[in-house]
């Protein structure tokens, strides 16, 4: 559970600014219990149970229609659950209307009030809370400082770029220090460069504020960069929740393995602790309850051997013959796509090892069973090649 994320955010965010000790740090701020949303016969969200920890950066990741935005809208109070309950600080949340919940929401479409200046926009939630004028000014200045938009107070939203508008929206959602900030694909409308920069900004702001962030995205890279924990949504249910590293190294479902990162996936029949696929019998670790198996290997765990060099480690007992179909130069490494009887194998090897292998070469790919993940093949059979 406490495994550090690849980006190392966990340590910095959760420890900074908290002197209260473990109990406060680890207690849950929001709990979802059996949360279900149906539209007629269509199930948008099915029996979601989730504990959100105080101060964490939690991402809802999934394809469109997977229920992640529905969950966010339920928490924000924009829609009502069909079944289930939500507890904020151990108090039922679903009885409160959206304007009584005191949560911050950032929308993909910014939703800035076009007839108000930046200052008036950020001041808006404070006015609803009947804060005095001088306190309002102080809070607005502080919030605009956090998002680095000092000096833009008198501009109208139309006069700002997309990135600036989203930062105003962020300032407006944090100015009243809500316990939880909900963000629905806030960077979705921005170009790649701006998005990457704002991702770093979001991490900094999360560190500075120390409040709980719930973030919705369909972009797995974004989720890996930002999150302390990720909840992977699929077809209205949560497939897995864990740190980015847990999801990458130990996916519990084939969907999660496919959705996060790249991998080679070989499907076969599981029997007697082995997986039979084509003419091969693959060694695996662990066991599954059905005979439809999928073996998942991350590209950096896949080894390659070819006439020019690149020897297998001794533990790489699973070896498959194939032909290099494609090669991409990635700087420090190369990515090979190797066609094998079991399907496509993706291999990432350091440049110095890879130098001699070329497209068209007959090669062997291999891996250590300890580096592979054995999963139940839940996908329709026709996808098996």
């Amino acid at each position, binding site marked *: 559970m406490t495994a550090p994320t690849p980006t190392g955010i966990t340590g910095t965010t959760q420890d900074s600014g908290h002197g209260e000790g473990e109990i406060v740090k680890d207690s849950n701020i929001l709990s979802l219990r059996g949360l279900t949303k149906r539209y007629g016969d269509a199930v948008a969200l099915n029996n979601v149970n989730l504990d959100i920890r105080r101060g964490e950066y939690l991402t809802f990741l999934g394809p469109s229609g997977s229920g992640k935005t529905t969950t966010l809208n339920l928490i*924000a*109070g*924009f829609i009502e659950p069909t079944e289930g309950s939500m507890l904020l600080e151990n108090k039922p949340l679903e009885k409160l*209307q*959206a*304007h*009584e*919940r*005191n*949560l*911050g*929401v950032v*929308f993909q*479409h*910014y*939703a*800035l*009030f*076009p*007839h108000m200046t930046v200052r008036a926009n950020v001041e*808006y*939630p404070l006015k*609803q*809370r009947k804060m005095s004028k001088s306190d309002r000014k102080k809070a607005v200045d502080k919030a605009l400082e956090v998002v680095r938009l000092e000096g833009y107070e008198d501009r*109208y*939203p*139309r*006069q700002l770029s997309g990135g600036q*508008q989203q930062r105003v929206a962020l300032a*407006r*959602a944090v100015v*009243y220090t809500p316990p939880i900030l909900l963000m629905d694909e806030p960077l979705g409308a921005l170009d790649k*460069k701006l998005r*990457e*920069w704002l991702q*770093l900004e979001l991490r900094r702001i999360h560190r500075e504020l120390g409040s709980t962030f719930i973030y919705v995205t369909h972009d797995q890279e974004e989720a890996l960069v930002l999150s302390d924990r990720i909840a992977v949504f699929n077809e209205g249910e949560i497939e897995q929740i864990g740190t980015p590293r847990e999801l990458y190294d130990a996916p519990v479902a084939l969907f999660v393995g496919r959705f996060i990162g790249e991998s080679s996936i070989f499907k076969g029949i599981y029997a007697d602790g082995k997986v039979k696929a084509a003419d091969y019998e693959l060694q695996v670790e662990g066991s599954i309850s059905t005979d439809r198996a999928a073996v998942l290997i991350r590209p950096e765990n896949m080894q390659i051997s070819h006439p020019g060099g690149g020897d297998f480690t001794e533990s790489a007992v699973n070896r498959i013959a194939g032909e290099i179909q494609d090669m991409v130069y990635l700087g420090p490494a190369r990515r090979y796509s190797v066609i094998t009887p079991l399907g496509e194998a993706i291999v990432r090897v350091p440049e110095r090892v890879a130098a001699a292998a070329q497209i068209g070469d007959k090669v062997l790919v291999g891996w250590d069973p300890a580096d592979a993940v054995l999963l139940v093949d839940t996908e329709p059979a026709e996808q098996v090649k």
Partner: protein
Amino acid sequence: MPARTDTSQFSTLSTRAIAVQSESEPKKRQWVSRDTRRLMLALLPAFLVLAVFYFYPMLTVLVASFTDPKPGLQNFEWFFSQSVNVGVLWRTIYISFWVMAICVVVAYPFAYFMTMVKPSTRSLLMLMVLIPFLTSTVVRTFAWVLLLQDSGPIGSFLSLFGVESLGIMRTPTAVLIGMAQVLLPFVVLPMFSTMSQIDRRLLTAAESLGAKRVKAFVTVYLPLSLPGVAAGALLCFVMALGFYITPAMLGSSRETFLSTLIQGQVQGLGQWGHGAVIALMLLVVTLAILGVSALLGRARGSAVSDMVGGSKA
């Protein structure tokens, strides 16, 4: 660190873009002027029609007010010396104002409702607005006479309950009802067009920030809908000022409009000079109102244009 380098690259790129733009500016200006010339050509027929059928008659009215029957200011002296004239002028403005107020109050919820319903219902509501709009004002006013007179359907219905006389005909109430009904489409349409541009998700955002539904509407939706309200109200007011048939048929002599006065002077008494002066007064009032609203619009202009541009984002 890479982000840093990228940013500087960005700024060099944009400076270059600006430099390129400024170099090509003279050429660009030529293009604009050629476009403008073509535009002028396209407007020429309209200009000709306006010149012959509008500006020339206006000019003769202006001339007549100073020269008919003899050169001098005697027509203006006549207008301002007769308290009846000034009274009718004020009454015209007063009734037009109330017609505008009624139309705005009735049209706002109607237009709002139109933005909320599904497209098929919206077309039906639009038709409801437009059908009376497409029938002649005279016919509609006659219909109101039939409806509102004491022996009309409303009067006979009320007489069942012992009301002896409806007593609406030939009162300001009848004039207000008749005029408001005629002018309602002119208020509904600009309001609807502005409201349908407003992003309703802003209301959700306002609620998430702690505003109650009503508060969110008043602080966000209402201000954004004001340009449409202003356009509709102005159109209504200016058109009401020139009304002739409706006040003449539904009102008494105390609801006389300036246009009725003109008709009386010109057709009844053959006083072309007097008629011209009254017409000029009507024009001056209308222009004054348009001028004031233009000034108000310019004062709020930046905010209005920000609204229109911003609500799409």
